Protein backbone atom coordinates (compact mmCIF):
# COMPACT_ATOMS: atom_id res chain seq x y z
CA UNK A 1 0.00 0.00 0.00
CA UNK A 2 1.16 3.47 -0.77
CA UNK A 3 0.40 6.51 1.34
CA UNK A 4 -2.88 7.23 -0.43
CA UNK A 5 -4.05 3.65 -0.05
CA UNK A 6 -3.27 3.61 3.66
CA UNK A 7 -5.23 6.81 4.00
CA UNK A 8 -8.14 5.24 2.14
CA UNK A 9 -8.01 2.20 4.44
CA UNK A 10 -8.32 4.49 7.48
CA UNK A 11 -11.14 6.45 5.81
CA UNK A 12 -13.00 3.18 5.14
CA UNK A 13 -12.75 2.23 8.79
CA UNK A 14 -13.89 5.66 9.97
CA UNK A 15 -16.86 5.52 7.60
CA UNK A 16 -17.88 2.22 9.12
CA UNK A 17 -17.63 3.20 12.76
CA UNK A 18 -19.01 6.73 12.37
CA UNK A 19 -21.63 6.39 9.64
CA UNK A 20 -23.20 9.76 10.42
CA UNK A 21 -20.00 11.75 10.00
CA UNK A 22 -18.68 13.33 6.85
CA UNK A 23 -15.38 11.55 6.48
CA UNK A 24 -14.51 13.01 3.07
CA UNK A 25 -13.58 16.41 4.46
CA UNK A 26 -11.18 15.23 7.16
CA UNK A 27 -8.04 17.34 7.41
CA UNK A 28 -4.94 15.23 7.92
CA UNK A 29 -3.08 17.43 10.36
CA UNK A 30 -5.90 18.17 12.80
CA UNK A 31 -6.80 15.62 15.46
CA UNK A 32 -9.70 13.36 14.47
CA UNK A 33 -11.54 14.13 17.69
CA UNK A 34 -11.69 17.81 16.79
CA UNK A 35 -13.34 17.02 13.48
CA UNK A 36 -15.59 14.13 14.41
CA UNK A 37 -17.64 13.04 17.40
CA UNK A 38 -15.23 10.29 18.47
CA UNK A 39 -14.87 8.88 21.98
CA UNK A 40 -12.56 6.30 23.48
CA UNK A 41 -14.88 3.48 22.36
CA UNK A 42 -14.49 4.67 18.77
CA UNK A 43 -10.73 4.45 19.02
CA UNK A 44 -11.09 0.92 20.37
CA UNK A 45 -13.23 0.18 17.30
CA UNK A 46 -10.45 1.47 15.03
CA UNK A 47 -8.02 -0.88 16.75
CA UNK A 48 -10.43 -3.81 16.35
CA UNK A 49 -10.99 -3.06 12.69
CA UNK A 50 -7.25 -2.85 12.01
CA UNK A 51 -6.87 -6.28 13.56
CA UNK A 52 -9.79 -7.70 11.65
CA UNK A 53 -8.90 -6.24 8.29
CA UNK A 54 -5.10 -6.34 8.33
CA UNK A 55 -4.14 -8.53 11.27
CA UNK A 56 -2.35 -5.55 12.81
CA UNK A 57 -2.10 -5.34 16.58
CA UNK A 58 -1.93 -1.82 17.97
CA UNK A 59 -0.80 -2.05 21.60
CA UNK A 60 -2.50 0.27 24.07
CA UNK A 61 0.71 2.25 24.45
CA UNK A 62 0.49 3.17 20.76
CA UNK A 63 -3.12 4.39 20.79
CA UNK A 64 -1.89 7.99 20.74
CA UNK A 65 -0.44 7.33 17.28
CA UNK A 66 -4.00 7.27 15.98
CA UNK A 67 -4.76 10.84 17.01
CA UNK A 68 -4.85 12.40 13.52
CA UNK A 69 -5.06 11.12 9.97
CA UNK A 70 -1.44 12.11 9.38
CA UNK A 71 -0.21 10.27 12.46
CA UNK A 72 -2.34 7.22 11.56
CA UNK A 73 -0.74 7.08 8.13
CA UNK A 74 2.74 7.56 9.53
CA UNK A 75 2.19 4.78 12.05
CA UNK A 76 0.37 2.34 9.77
CA UNK A 77 2.29 2.70 6.52
CA UNK A 78 5.33 0.67 7.57
CA UNK A 79 2.98 -2.03 8.86
CA UNK A 80 0.90 -2.07 5.68
CA UNK A 81 3.54 -1.49 3.06
CA UNK A 82 3.38 -5.05 1.71
CA UNK A 83 -0.42 -5.27 1.69
CA UNK A 84 -2.87 -4.75 -1.12
CA UNK A 85 -5.89 -2.60 -0.48
CA UNK A 86 -8.90 -4.89 -0.46
CA UNK A 87 -11.06 -4.10 -3.43
Amino acid at each position, binding site marked *: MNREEVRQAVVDILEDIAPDEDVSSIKDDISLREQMDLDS*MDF*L*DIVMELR*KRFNIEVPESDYQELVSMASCIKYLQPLLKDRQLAS
Partner: protein
Amino acid sequence: MKRDWLKGANSAYDVVVIGSGLAGMTAANMLAKLGHSVLLAEHHYNMGGLATWFKRKGGHILDISLHGFPSGMVKTFRKYWTKEMADSVIRLKGIRFDNPQFKLITTFDKVDFTNILQERFGIVKEVIDDFFETARNMNFYDELKMTTRELFESFFPGRKDVWRFLMEPITYANGSTLDDPALSYGIVFSNFMDKGVFTYQGGTDELIKKMKKELIKNGVDIRTHCLVEKIHIEGKNVKGVKINGKDIECRSVLSNSNILSTIHKLAGDENFSSEFIKEVKKVRLNDSSCQVYIGIKKGEKIDNVGDLLFTSVAEEYDTEKILDKQVTSRTFSFYYPEMRPGLDRFAIVSSTNARFKDWANLSEEEYKIEKEKLIKSTLDALEKYVPDIRQKADYFEAATPKTFKRYTLAPTGTSFGTKFEGLKISRDLPKQINGLYHSGSVGIIMSGWLGAANYGVIVANEVDKFMRSLKNKIQEMAPTSV
Protein backbone atom coordinates in the same frame (compact mmCIF):
# COMPACT_ATOMS: atom_id res chain seq x y z
CA MET B 1 -37.64 -37.22 30.09
CA LYS B 2 -35.79 -34.05 30.88
CA ARG B 3 -35.15 -31.93 27.83
CA ASP B 4 -31.54 -31.74 26.62
CA TRP B 5 -30.96 -28.01 26.24
CA LEU B 6 -27.54 -28.68 24.70
CA LYS B 7 -28.89 -30.91 21.98
CA GLY B 8 -26.98 -30.38 18.75
CA ALA B 9 -24.30 -28.25 20.39
CA ASN B 10 -20.73 -28.58 19.15
CA SER B 11 -18.11 -30.32 21.26
CA ALA B 12 -15.87 -27.27 21.02
CA TYR B 13 -16.10 -23.52 20.48
CA ASP B 14 -13.59 -20.71 20.23
CA VAL B 15 -15.31 -18.81 23.02
CA VAL B 16 -17.92 -19.67 25.59
CA VAL B 17 -19.76 -16.65 26.99
CA ILE B 18 -21.28 -17.31 30.39
CA GLY B 19 -24.43 -15.33 30.97
CA SER B 20 -26.54 -13.19 28.68
CA GLY B 21 -26.60 -9.85 30.45
CA LEU B 22 -26.05 -6.83 28.21
CA ALA B 23 -22.28 -7.24 28.53
CA GLY B 24 -22.40 -10.96 27.67
CA MET B 25 -24.73 -10.52 24.73
CA THR B 26 -22.84 -7.55 23.30
CA ALA B 27 -19.52 -9.38 23.64
CA ALA B 28 -20.96 -12.55 22.06
CA ASN B 29 -22.30 -10.53 19.15
CA MET B 30 -18.97 -8.77 18.58
CA LEU B 31 -16.96 -11.99 18.79
CA ALA B 32 -19.24 -13.78 16.34
CA LYS B 33 -19.00 -10.85 13.94
CA LEU B 34 -15.22 -11.02 14.25
CA GLY B 35 -15.35 -14.61 13.03
CA HIS B 36 -15.13 -16.69 16.19
CA SER B 37 -17.41 -19.59 17.03
CA VAL B 38 -19.36 -18.57 20.11
CA LEU B 39 -21.56 -20.42 22.56
CA LEU B 40 -23.69 -18.18 24.76
CA ALA B 41 -24.90 -20.05 27.85
CA GLU B 42 -27.71 -18.63 29.99
CA HIS B 43 -29.09 -20.44 33.04
CA HIS B 44 -32.45 -18.67 32.90
CA TYR B 45 -35.09 -19.22 30.23
CA ASN B 46 -34.96 -15.53 29.33
CA MET B 47 -32.00 -13.53 28.09
CA GLY B 48 -30.96 -10.04 29.19
CA GLY B 49 -29.79 -10.51 32.78
CA LEU B 50 -31.10 -7.49 34.65
CA ALA B 51 -32.14 -5.96 31.34
CA THR B 52 -35.31 -7.93 31.56
CA TRP B 53 -39.07 -7.82 31.88
CA PHE B 54 -41.96 -10.06 32.79
CA LYS B 55 -45.51 -10.48 31.62
CA ARG B 56 -48.54 -11.11 33.79
CA LYS B 57 -52.18 -11.98 33.26
CA GLY B 58 -54.27 -9.02 32.22
CA GLY B 59 -51.78 -7.96 29.55
CA HIS B 60 -49.27 -6.44 31.97
CA ILE B 61 -45.66 -6.05 30.86
CA LEU B 62 -43.26 -4.85 33.53
CA ASP B 63 -39.70 -3.67 32.81
CA ILE B 64 -37.06 -4.26 35.46
CA SER B 65 -34.26 -1.86 34.56
CA LEU B 66 -35.45 0.31 31.71
CA HIS B 67 -35.48 3.43 33.86
CA GLY B 68 -33.34 5.47 31.53
CA PHE B 69 -29.86 5.43 30.07
CA PRO B 70 -27.48 8.10 28.69
CA SER B 71 -27.48 9.13 25.03
CA GLY B 72 -24.27 7.16 24.47
CA MET B 73 -26.47 4.08 24.17
CA VAL B 74 -27.60 5.26 20.72
CA LYS B 75 -24.07 4.98 19.43
CA THR B 76 -23.57 1.66 21.19
CA PHE B 77 -26.69 0.19 19.57
CA ARG B 78 -25.68 1.57 16.21
CA LYS B 79 -22.11 0.31 16.28
CA TYR B 80 -22.39 -3.01 18.06
CA TRP B 81 -25.98 -3.99 17.28
CA THR B 82 -28.22 -2.50 14.62
CA LYS B 83 -29.35 0.86 13.33
CA GLU B 84 -32.92 -0.26 13.90
CA MET B 85 -32.22 -0.54 17.64
CA ALA B 86 -30.50 2.84 17.69
CA ASP B 87 -33.53 4.37 15.96
CA SER B 88 -35.83 3.07 18.70
CA VAL B 89 -34.18 5.19 21.39
CA ILE B 90 -36.38 8.03 22.63
CA ARG B 91 -35.78 10.76 25.16
CA LEU B 92 -37.43 11.04 28.57
CA LYS B 93 -37.93 14.68 29.43
CA GLY B 94 -39.85 14.72 32.65
CA ILE B 95 -37.45 14.00 35.47
CA ARG B 96 -39.00 15.06 38.77
CA PHE B 97 -37.75 15.55 42.28
CA ASP B 98 -39.97 15.76 45.33
CA ASN B 99 -38.40 15.88 48.78
CA PRO B 100 -38.48 18.14 51.84
CA GLN B 101 -35.65 20.26 50.41
CA PHE B 102 -37.04 20.95 46.92
CA LYS B 103 -39.65 20.07 44.32
CA LEU B 104 -38.75 20.54 40.68
CA ILE B 105 -38.91 19.07 37.21
CA THR B 106 -35.95 18.93 34.83
CA THR B 107 -34.95 17.58 31.43
CA PHE B 108 -31.83 16.28 33.18
CA ASP B 109 -29.17 17.76 30.97
CA LYS B 110 -26.34 20.22 31.46
CA VAL B 111 -28.21 23.27 30.20
CA ASP B 112 -31.23 22.71 32.42
CA PHE B 113 -29.14 21.72 35.42
CA THR B 114 -27.06 24.86 35.03
CA ASN B 115 -30.21 26.99 35.01
CA ILE B 116 -31.67 25.25 38.03
CA LEU B 117 -28.43 25.42 40.00
CA GLN B 118 -28.19 29.13 39.22
CA GLU B 119 -31.77 30.23 39.68
CA ARG B 120 -33.14 27.80 42.19
CA PHE B 121 -30.07 27.09 44.28
CA GLY B 122 -28.29 30.40 43.74
CA ILE B 123 -24.97 28.95 42.69
CA VAL B 124 -22.59 31.16 40.73
CA LYS B 125 -22.29 30.26 37.03
CA GLU B 126 -18.50 29.94 37.17
CA VAL B 127 -18.70 27.37 39.97
CA ILE B 128 -21.29 25.35 38.06
CA ASP B 129 -19.20 25.39 34.87
CA ASP B 130 -16.13 24.42 36.81
CA PHE B 131 -18.01 21.55 38.46
CA PHE B 132 -19.25 20.20 35.11
CA GLU B 133 -15.76 20.53 33.69
CA THR B 134 -14.22 18.68 36.64
CA ALA B 135 -16.78 15.84 36.40
CA ARG B 136 -16.36 15.61 32.63
CA ASN B 137 -12.59 15.27 32.88
CA MET B 138 -12.64 12.31 35.23
CA ASN B 139 -11.25 9.07 33.86
CA PHE B 140 -11.61 5.59 35.21
CA TYR B 141 -7.85 5.22 35.50
CA ASP B 142 -7.48 8.36 37.61
CA GLU B 143 -6.33 8.19 41.19
CA LEU B 144 -9.08 7.39 43.61
CA LYS B 145 -8.15 9.76 46.39
CA MET B 146 -11.20 12.01 46.28
CA THR B 147 -14.65 10.82 47.33
CA THR B 148 -17.87 12.24 45.96
CA ARG B 149 -18.50 13.80 49.36
CA GLU B 150 -15.17 15.66 49.10
CA LEU B 151 -15.97 16.69 45.54
CA PHE B 152 -19.29 18.19 46.63
CA GLU B 153 -17.75 19.74 49.73
CA SER B 154 -15.18 21.55 47.62
CA PHE B 155 -17.68 22.95 45.09
CA PHE B 156 -20.82 23.35 47.19
CA PRO B 157 -19.70 23.47 50.82
CA GLY B 158 -22.51 22.75 53.25
CA ARG B 159 -25.14 22.82 50.50
CA LYS B 160 -26.87 19.51 51.29
CA ASP B 161 -29.77 20.48 49.03
CA VAL B 162 -27.42 20.76 46.05
CA TRP B 163 -25.73 17.50 47.01
CA ARG B 164 -29.08 15.76 46.97
CA PHE B 165 -30.02 17.24 43.59
CA LEU B 166 -26.74 16.04 42.09
CA MET B 167 -26.43 12.73 43.89
CA GLU B 168 -29.83 11.10 44.36
CA PRO B 169 -30.39 10.12 40.71
CA ILE B 170 -26.90 8.69 40.42
CA THR B 171 -27.39 6.61 43.54
CA TYR B 172 -30.37 5.05 41.77
CA ALA B 173 -28.46 4.73 38.52
CA ASN B 174 -25.42 2.92 39.83
CA GLY B 175 -25.72 2.39 43.57
CA SER B 176 -22.84 4.74 44.37
CA THR B 177 -22.73 6.73 47.58
CA LEU B 178 -21.03 9.88 48.84
CA ASP B 179 -18.17 7.77 50.13
CA ASP B 180 -17.35 6.12 46.81
CA PRO B 181 -14.60 7.52 44.56
CA ALA B 182 -15.63 10.81 42.98
CA LEU B 183 -14.84 9.50 39.53
CA SER B 184 -17.53 6.80 39.80
CA TYR B 185 -19.93 9.69 40.26
CA GLY B 186 -18.37 12.07 37.77
CA ILE B 187 -18.27 9.70 34.81
CA VAL B 188 -21.86 8.52 35.13
CA PHE B 189 -23.18 12.01 35.93
CA SER B 190 -21.42 13.46 32.89
CA ASN B 191 -22.75 10.71 30.64
CA PHE B 192 -26.30 11.67 31.57
CA MET B 193 -25.70 15.43 31.55
CA ASP B 194 -24.36 15.23 28.00
CA LYS B 195 -27.80 15.00 26.40
CA GLY B 196 -30.27 13.76 29.01
CA VAL B 197 -32.07 10.51 29.80
CA PHE B 198 -33.24 8.06 27.15
CA THR B 199 -35.23 4.88 26.90
CA TYR B 200 -35.98 2.13 24.43
CA GLN B 201 -39.30 2.46 22.65
CA GLY B 202 -40.84 -0.96 22.37
CA GLY B 203 -39.67 -2.01 25.81
CA THR B 204 -37.08 -4.46 27.07
CA ASP B 205 -38.92 -7.44 25.56
CA GLU B 206 -38.74 -5.95 22.08
CA LEU B 207 -35.07 -5.07 22.50
CA ILE B 208 -33.99 -8.48 23.73
CA LYS B 209 -36.01 -10.16 20.97
CA LYS B 210 -34.12 -8.09 18.40
CA MET B 211 -30.80 -8.80 20.04
CA LYS B 212 -31.52 -12.52 20.01
CA LYS B 213 -32.36 -12.37 16.31
CA GLU B 214 -29.13 -10.50 15.62
CA LEU B 215 -27.04 -12.95 17.64
CA ILE B 216 -28.51 -15.88 15.72
CA LYS B 217 -27.94 -14.11 12.41
CA ASN B 218 -24.29 -13.62 13.32
CA GLY B 219 -23.88 -17.28 14.21
CA VAL B 220 -23.93 -17.29 18.01
CA ASP B 221 -25.13 -20.59 19.43
CA ILE B 222 -27.56 -19.43 22.14
CA ARG B 223 -28.43 -21.90 24.86
CA THR B 224 -30.90 -20.95 27.55
CA HIS B 225 -31.62 -23.20 30.58
CA CYS B 226 -27.89 -23.92 30.49
CA LEU B 227 -26.06 -23.44 33.75
CA VAL B 228 -22.28 -23.32 33.54
CA GLU B 229 -21.07 -25.31 36.53
CA LYS B 230 -17.32 -25.14 36.06
CA ILE B 231 -14.60 -23.57 33.97
CA HIS B 232 -11.97 -26.20 33.21
CA ILE B 233 -8.45 -24.93 33.65
CA GLU B 234 -5.22 -26.86 33.06
CA GLY B 235 -1.95 -25.30 34.06
CA LYS B 236 -2.65 -21.67 33.35
CA ASN B 237 -4.93 -22.21 30.38
CA VAL B 238 -8.66 -22.36 29.84
CA LYS B 239 -9.63 -25.76 28.41
CA GLY B 240 -13.38 -25.75 28.49
CA VAL B 241 -16.53 -25.55 30.57
CA LYS B 242 -19.02 -27.90 32.12
CA ILE B 243 -22.60 -27.01 31.21
CA ASN B 244 -25.57 -28.97 32.57
CA GLY B 245 -23.15 -31.82 33.37
CA LYS B 246 -21.62 -31.89 29.90
CA ASP B 247 -18.04 -30.90 29.03
CA ILE B 248 -17.50 -28.51 26.16
CA GLU B 249 -14.05 -27.50 24.95
CA CYS B 250 -13.06 -23.90 24.38
CA ARG B 251 -9.91 -21.79 24.26
CA SER B 252 -11.38 -18.86 26.04
CA VAL B 253 -14.21 -18.05 28.38
CA LEU B 254 -15.84 -14.67 28.78
CA SER B 255 -17.80 -14.70 32.00
CA ASN B 256 -20.70 -12.29 32.37
CA SER B 257 -21.40 -13.94 35.68
CA ASN B 258 -20.58 -11.92 38.80
CA ILE B 259 -16.80 -11.46 39.13
CA LEU B 260 -16.64 -13.12 42.56
CA SER B 261 -18.73 -16.11 41.46
CA THR B 262 -16.53 -16.40 38.37
CA ILE B 263 -13.40 -16.69 40.50
CA HIS B 264 -14.57 -18.59 43.57
CA LYS B 265 -17.21 -20.87 42.09
CA LEU B 266 -16.60 -21.30 38.36
CA ALA B 267 -12.81 -21.19 38.10
CA GLY B 268 -11.77 -22.11 41.66
CA ASP B 269 -9.35 -20.23 43.91
CA GLU B 270 -6.67 -22.91 43.45
CA ASN B 271 -6.05 -21.71 39.90
CA PHE B 272 -5.01 -18.20 40.94
CA SER B 273 -1.98 -16.87 42.77
CA SER B 274 -2.49 -16.37 46.49
CA GLU B 275 -1.73 -12.62 46.16
CA PHE B 276 -4.48 -12.31 43.59
CA ILE B 277 -7.01 -14.14 45.76
CA LYS B 278 -6.04 -11.86 48.62
CA GLU B 279 -7.03 -8.87 46.47
CA VAL B 280 -10.21 -10.63 45.32
CA LYS B 281 -11.27 -11.01 48.92
CA LYS B 282 -11.17 -7.25 49.35
CA VAL B 283 -13.75 -6.69 46.61
CA ARG B 284 -16.99 -5.37 48.07
CA LEU B 285 -20.28 -6.19 46.40
CA ASN B 286 -22.69 -3.39 45.77
CA ASP B 287 -26.09 -3.24 47.34
CA SER B 288 -29.23 -4.63 45.86
CA SER B 289 -32.73 -3.33 45.23
CA CYS B 290 -36.37 -3.77 45.99
CA GLN B 291 -38.95 -3.09 43.35
CA VAL B 292 -42.72 -2.85 43.34
CA TYR B 293 -44.49 -3.44 40.05
CA ILE B 294 -47.85 -1.82 39.51
CA GLY B 295 -49.92 -2.72 36.46
CA ILE B 296 -52.71 -0.35 35.48
CA LYS B 297 -56.02 -1.94 34.42
CA LYS B 298 -56.76 -2.24 30.73
CA GLY B 299 -58.68 0.83 29.61
CA GLU B 300 -57.60 2.93 32.62
CA LYS B 301 -55.36 5.97 32.20
CA ILE B 302 -53.13 7.98 34.48
CA ASP B 303 -52.09 11.59 33.98
CA ASN B 304 -48.55 12.35 32.96
CA VAL B 305 -46.77 13.05 36.23
CA GLY B 306 -43.26 12.73 34.80
CA ASP B 307 -41.18 9.83 33.53
CA LEU B 308 -38.86 9.40 36.47
CA LEU B 309 -39.79 10.65 39.89
CA PHE B 310 -37.23 10.80 42.67
CA THR B 311 -39.15 11.01 45.90
CA SER B 312 -37.98 11.12 49.46
CA VAL B 313 -39.41 12.08 52.79
CA ALA B 314 -35.97 12.09 54.43
CA GLU B 315 -34.82 15.54 55.54
CA GLU B 316 -31.47 15.16 53.74
CA TYR B 317 -29.77 12.82 51.31
CA ASP B 318 -28.43 10.00 53.42
CA THR B 319 -26.93 6.77 52.08
CA GLU B 320 -27.84 4.72 55.12
CA LYS B 321 -31.43 5.90 54.99
CA ILE B 322 -31.65 5.16 51.27
CA LEU B 323 -30.69 1.55 51.97
CA ASP B 324 -32.81 1.21 55.07
CA LYS B 325 -35.69 -1.22 55.13
CA GLN B 326 -37.75 1.63 56.59
CA VAL B 327 -38.00 3.15 53.16
CA THR B 328 -37.87 6.92 52.92
CA SER B 329 -36.72 7.27 49.29
CA ARG B 330 -38.24 5.79 46.18
CA THR B 331 -37.80 6.24 42.48
CA PHE B 332 -40.91 5.77 40.38
CA SER B 333 -40.59 4.93 36.71
CA PHE B 334 -43.78 5.69 34.81
CA TYR B 335 -44.40 3.79 31.61
CA TYR B 336 -46.93 5.52 29.38
CA PRO B 337 -48.48 4.11 26.17
CA GLU B 338 -45.74 5.78 24.05
CA MET B 339 -43.40 3.20 25.51
CA ARG B 340 -45.07 0.35 23.69
CA PRO B 341 -46.99 1.92 20.81
CA GLY B 342 -50.15 0.05 19.94
CA LEU B 343 -50.71 -1.49 23.37
CA ASP B 344 -52.16 1.58 25.10
CA ARG B 345 -51.10 0.42 28.54
CA PHE B 346 -49.64 2.09 31.63
CA ALA B 347 -47.36 0.67 34.28
CA ILE B 348 -45.41 2.02 37.24
CA VAL B 349 -42.29 0.52 38.76
CA SER B 350 -40.98 1.71 42.11
CA SER B 351 -37.32 1.08 42.91
CA THR B 352 -35.52 1.42 46.20
CA ASN B 353 -31.97 0.49 47.03
CA ALA B 354 -31.82 -2.31 49.59
CA ARG B 355 -29.55 -4.62 51.55
CA PHE B 356 -29.60 -8.37 51.04
CA LYS B 357 -29.15 -9.10 54.73
CA ASP B 358 -32.39 -7.35 55.60
CA TRP B 359 -34.32 -9.84 53.49
CA ALA B 360 -32.24 -13.01 53.46
CA ASN B 361 -33.03 -14.45 56.85
CA LEU B 362 -36.77 -14.02 57.10
CA SER B 363 -39.03 -17.04 57.46
CA GLU B 364 -41.28 -17.77 54.52
CA GLU B 365 -44.21 -16.24 56.38
CA GLU B 366 -42.28 -13.13 57.45
CA TYR B 367 -40.95 -12.68 53.94
CA LYS B 368 -44.47 -12.74 52.53
CA ILE B 369 -45.67 -10.23 55.12
CA GLU B 370 -42.71 -7.91 54.47
CA LYS B 371 -43.37 -7.98 50.75
CA GLU B 372 -47.02 -7.08 51.33
CA LYS B 373 -45.93 -4.24 53.59
CA LEU B 374 -43.56 -2.98 50.91
CA ILE B 375 -46.36 -2.96 48.34
CA LYS B 376 -48.70 -1.17 50.74
CA SER B 377 -46.21 1.54 51.73
CA THR B 378 -45.29 2.05 48.08
CA LEU B 379 -48.93 2.60 47.13
CA ASP B 380 -49.31 4.98 50.08
CA ALA B 381 -46.38 7.00 48.78
CA LEU B 382 -47.63 6.85 45.20
CA GLU B 383 -51.09 8.12 46.12
CA LYS B 384 -49.62 11.57 46.52
CA TYR B 385 -48.94 11.63 42.77
CA VAL B 386 -51.59 9.28 41.42
CA PRO B 387 -54.43 9.69 43.94
CA ASP B 388 -56.65 6.84 42.78
CA ILE B 389 -53.86 4.37 42.09
CA ARG B 390 -55.49 1.64 44.16
CA GLN B 391 -58.58 1.76 41.94
CA LYS B 392 -56.72 2.10 38.68
CA ALA B 393 -54.25 -0.72 39.17
CA ASP B 394 -55.07 -4.40 39.24
CA TYR B 395 -51.66 -5.96 39.46
CA PHE B 396 -49.14 -5.59 42.30
CA GLU B 397 -45.95 -7.51 42.90
CA ALA B 398 -42.75 -6.98 44.85
CA ALA B 399 -39.16 -8.04 44.17
CA THR B 400 -36.49 -8.07 46.87
CA PRO B 401 -32.73 -8.68 46.91
CA LYS B 402 -33.64 -12.38 47.17
CA THR B 403 -35.57 -12.15 43.91
CA PHE B 404 -32.61 -10.54 42.18
CA LYS B 405 -30.35 -13.27 43.47
CA ARG B 406 -32.61 -16.02 42.19
CA TYR B 407 -32.73 -14.68 38.64
CA THR B 408 -29.20 -13.34 38.20
CA LEU B 409 -27.36 -15.77 40.54
CA ALA B 410 -25.37 -12.72 41.66
CA PRO B 411 -24.22 -13.14 45.26
CA THR B 412 -26.40 -11.17 47.69
CA GLY B 413 -28.56 -10.20 44.72
CA THR B 414 -26.35 -7.22 43.92
CA SER B 415 -28.02 -5.12 41.26
CA PHE B 416 -24.97 -2.92 40.68
CA GLY B 417 -22.13 -5.46 40.60
CA THR B 418 -19.16 -4.53 42.74
CA LYS B 419 -17.53 -1.44 44.16
CA PHE B 420 -14.65 0.18 42.31
CA GLU B 421 -11.95 -2.37 43.24
CA GLY B 422 -13.84 -5.05 41.26
CA LEU B 423 -12.78 -3.45 37.98
CA LYS B 424 -9.09 -4.16 38.47
CA ILE B 425 -9.78 -7.79 39.36
CA SER B 426 -11.98 -8.15 36.30
CA ARG B 427 -9.27 -6.63 34.07
CA ASP B 428 -6.49 -8.73 35.60
CA LEU B 429 -8.19 -12.11 35.20
CA PRO B 430 -6.43 -12.98 31.91
CA LYS B 431 -3.05 -12.23 33.49
CA GLN B 432 -3.76 -15.08 35.89
CA ILE B 433 -5.25 -17.57 33.45
CA ASN B 434 -4.76 -17.50 29.69
CA GLY B 435 -8.11 -17.20 27.99
CA LEU B 436 -10.17 -16.27 31.05
CA TYR B 437 -12.05 -12.99 30.76
CA HIS B 438 -14.78 -11.24 32.67
CA SER B 439 -17.22 -8.56 31.69
CA GLY B 440 -20.19 -7.17 33.54
CA SER B 441 -21.11 -4.86 36.32
CA VAL B 442 -17.90 -3.98 38.14
CA GLY B 443 -16.61 -0.81 39.62
CA ILE B 444 -19.85 1.11 39.26
CA ILE B 445 -18.83 2.89 36.05
CA MET B 446 -19.07 -0.34 34.07
CA SER B 447 -22.63 -0.71 35.33
CA GLY B 448 -25.96 0.24 33.88
CA TRP B 449 -27.02 -0.43 30.32
CA LEU B 450 -24.38 1.73 28.66
CA GLY B 451 -21.52 0.73 30.96
CA ALA B 452 -22.30 -2.98 30.71
CA ALA B 453 -22.70 -3.03 26.93
CA ASN B 454 -19.52 -1.01 26.35
CA TYR B 455 -17.54 -3.09 28.80
CA GLY B 456 -18.70 -6.12 26.80
CA VAL B 457 -17.09 -4.56 23.72
CA ILE B 458 -13.88 -3.67 25.57
CA VAL B 459 -13.45 -7.26 26.74
CA ALA B 460 -14.53 -8.75 23.40
CA ASN B 461 -11.61 -6.81 21.95
CA GLU B 462 -9.25 -8.51 24.41
CA VAL B 463 -10.69 -11.95 23.64
CA ASP B 464 -10.37 -11.33 19.91
CA LYS B 465 -6.75 -10.30 20.38
CA PHE B 466 -6.07 -13.48 22.37
CA MET B 467 -7.85 -15.80 19.94
CA ARG B 468 -6.09 -14.27 16.97
CA SER B 469 -2.71 -14.67 18.62
CA LEU B 470 -3.50 -18.36 19.13
CA LYS B 471 -4.64 -18.79 15.55
CA ASN B 472 -1.61 -16.95 14.23
CA LYS B 473 0.61 -19.24 16.27
CA ILE B 474 -1.04 -22.49 15.33
CA GLN B 475 -2.05 -21.51 11.80
CA GLU B 476 -4.94 -23.91 11.91
CA MET B 477 -8.49 -23.75 13.06
CA ALA B 478 -8.98 -25.22 16.49
CA PRO B 479 -12.69 -25.98 16.78
CA THR B 480 -14.21 -29.09 15.30
CA SER B 481 -17.85 -29.94 15.02
CA VAL B 482 -19.38 -33.27 15.79
